[in-house]
């Protein structure tokens, strides 16, 4: 069975500084990896995905993520944080082609301090 770990419950970063939200996964085969963001009282919004190809994936709102197969990681990054980036971030995985059942991590609360 697949699993996702987000080791940090909360990440605090100053506005303008780079941010990283960590994610590691465990799945057999070649995984498909996703990042979603959840704002208060709103649904999950898709940020980016890794399917195959270039290990660095660029997504919405200036976010990017790097797939590292040897470390089974898919960390979310942004070069310069905005206060409006403050939200709950979820990493998710499926075991690859033809699969559909997303397995989510517990989420990481990102707070960007002005």
């Amino acid at each position, binding site marked *: 069975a697949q699993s*996702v770990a987000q080791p940090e419950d909360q990440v605090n970063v100053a506005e303008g500084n780079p941010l990283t939200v960590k994610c590691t996964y465990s799945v057999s085969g070649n995984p*498909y990896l*996703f990042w*979603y963001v959840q704002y208060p*009282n*709103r*649904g*999950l*919004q*898709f940020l980016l*995905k890794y*399917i195959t190809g270039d290990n660095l994936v660029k997504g919405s709102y200036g976010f990017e993520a790097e797939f590292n197969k040897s470390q089974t990681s898919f960390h979310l990054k942004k070069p310069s944080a905005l206060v409006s980036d403050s939200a709950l971030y*979820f990493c*998710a995985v*499926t075991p690859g*082609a*033809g699969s*559909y*059942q*997303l*397995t*989510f*991590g*517990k*989420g990481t609360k990102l707070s960007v301090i002005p």
Partner: protein
Amino acid sequence: GAGVSQTPSNKVTEKGKYVELRCDPISGHTALYWYRQSLGQGPEFLIYFQGTGAADDSGLPNDRFFAVRPEGSVSTLKIQRTERGDSAVYLCASSFDRTYNEQFFGPGTRLTVL
């Protein structure tokens, strides 16, 4: 275009009662998913529909939970004899098909069982 919609946004019921939660997916999306998100956790898969049929209901916690999608569009999640432990946010998502296409989530229905 319109996103995934869910009604009601909030539902408060008493233990033992029956509830129905509705999901209206994005037009043209053949795949529909239900997830449950408990406080402080990531969403957990409940059931997946491809068209009208439930292709995978392995995430339903017990036989009090049932879901239908009779015309391949709107879906209803039904919970019988509700228990306090059923309290959670129920999320619906849809995707163009079941492959690697990202799932688009609705805002969720917050169910509270008193």
